[in-house]
């Protein structure tokens, strides 16, 4: 039998025998960023559609957690940096070709916006809230006057943020598993689905909950379609990408991916939501937690598996 044996004398820490440079920080941030993007997208969307009062959970209540999500995500990103004191170098330049650069700038814009949005709706949770300082009251008035503009900016930025979490990976042709442009839409859809799930949790009306359950089912279906599509693409591609797909089709990531992400994180919550729509009593929190879990696992598995996938030469 013809054999090829490659022996390398290199043993650099975190590089060999396989790449392990990105740990839990990156997938956690990608999850939180995607989730934040999902929530803000729906919040902005329903303001633009003029259904602000009908979709109170989406517009006013759920966005209250977004600043926390983004701040935790940013802390995770910062912890991941290995030359931490130089992090400000990110904001000395804009590099169009580097997804990480425009991701950093998007975060720079969307984080304060999320704080502003949460502040505008603080009275949903604390009805007697008073900003005390006149300047703050003035700012609040200004923000409310320009709410529609803010909503548009938020929808655009949240789509960029959501899709960027996937593009960050797909820009690396060195890692065949990541090197597919469909990862952007997949992570965006997953983020939107997670956002819809959180909104279900925050919403107080039956109608809104039902509506978001429908949206979530649709998004999960799109996600499943994209996943199938992604593997079809890999299997029809070059050897390295076939190898990458095989990690999930019989290889080491088969069980975690199909069980945790697809079955527990997508199919099961979608079924529960369908049952809920059929008026069968199911705890609201159950499908929500499952969707969030699936969304988190998707990022962890893709992040770790991608670092294992490589070119052999």
């Amino acid at each position, binding site marked *: 039998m*013809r054999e090829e044996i490659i022996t390398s*004398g*290199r043993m650099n*820490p975190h590089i060999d025998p396989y790449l392990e*440079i990105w740990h839990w920080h990156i997938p956690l941030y990608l999850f939180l960023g995607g989730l934040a993007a999902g929530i803000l997208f729906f919040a902005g969307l329903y303001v633009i559609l003029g259904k602000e009062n009908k979709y109170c959970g989406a517009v006013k209540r759920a966005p209250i957690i977004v600043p926390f999500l983004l701040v935790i995500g940013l802390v995770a990103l910062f912890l*991941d940096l290995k030359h931490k004191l130089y992090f400000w170098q990110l904001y000395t330049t804009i590099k169009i070709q580097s997804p990480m650069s425009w991701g950093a700038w998007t975060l720079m814009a969307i984080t304060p916006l999320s704080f502003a949005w949460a502040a505008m709706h603080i009275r949903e949770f604390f009805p007697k809230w008073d900003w005390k300082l006149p300047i703050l009251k003035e700012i609040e008035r200004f923000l409310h006057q320009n709410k529609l503009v803010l909503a548009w900016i938020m929808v655009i930025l949240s789509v960029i943020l959501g899709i960027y979490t996937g593009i960050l990976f797909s820009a690396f042709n*060195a890692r065949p598993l990541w090197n597919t442009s469909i990862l952007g839409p997949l992570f965006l859809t997953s983020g939107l689905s997670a956002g819809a799930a959180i909104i279900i949790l925050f919403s107080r009306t039956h109608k809104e909950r039902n509506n978001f359950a429908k949206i979530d089912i649709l998004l999960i279906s799109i996600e499943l379609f994209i996943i199938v599509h992604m593997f079809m693409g890999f299997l029809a591609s070059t050897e390295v990408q076939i190898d990458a797909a095989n990690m999930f089709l019989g290889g080491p990531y088969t069980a975690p991916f199909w069980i945790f992400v697809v079955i527990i994180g997508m199919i099961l919550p979608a079924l529960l939501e369908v049952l809920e729509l059929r008026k069968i009593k199911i705890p609201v929190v159950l499908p929500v937690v499952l969707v969030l879990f699936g969304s988190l696992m998707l990022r962890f598995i893709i992040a770790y598996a991608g670092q294992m996938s*490589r*070119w052999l030469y």
Partner: protein
Amino acid sequence: MRYAMAIDTKKCVGCADCVVACQTENDVPIGYCRDWIVEVTDGTYPQLEIEIRSERCNHCENSPCVRCCPTGASHYEDGGIVTVTKHKCIGCGACIVSCPYDARYSHPEGYVDKCTFCMHRIKKGQQPACVAVCPTKCMYFGDLDDPNSEVSKVLKQRKFKTLIPEAGTKPHVYYLI
């Protein structure tokens, strides 16, 4: 000016002198290396062929690491040498992930480190440390734009290949086969 290196796989014996010379010259932290030896054994026993390569950063013309660096720390120096500016590097690891050759590593001090073609030596008119010490003289270094440079001459005479050309990186380290 386009610096390049040609390495003769027929002459290389895999002694790893280049690896040690680089570690000493560049003060590479213990346990790390900027260049390394790869042995590829191919065939059906007993008809086996062996190829020995001294590998390092390929100083690609279309470097994914330079493209994905968010701060511009990874950049091209004169002659197409790909290097990292320490005080601009935030240690995000994007360049490490982007390199199909895995030629970079995270220095214990936090920044990303890699082969520089011994830029400090080239500026003095010397050869990179690995080339200078090679006991079999299997490495050639020079300017591709100069038809009389060692590397241009040997690439004219011999068959050569680059590593993973299909990755589209346009490497500047050539392997004579």
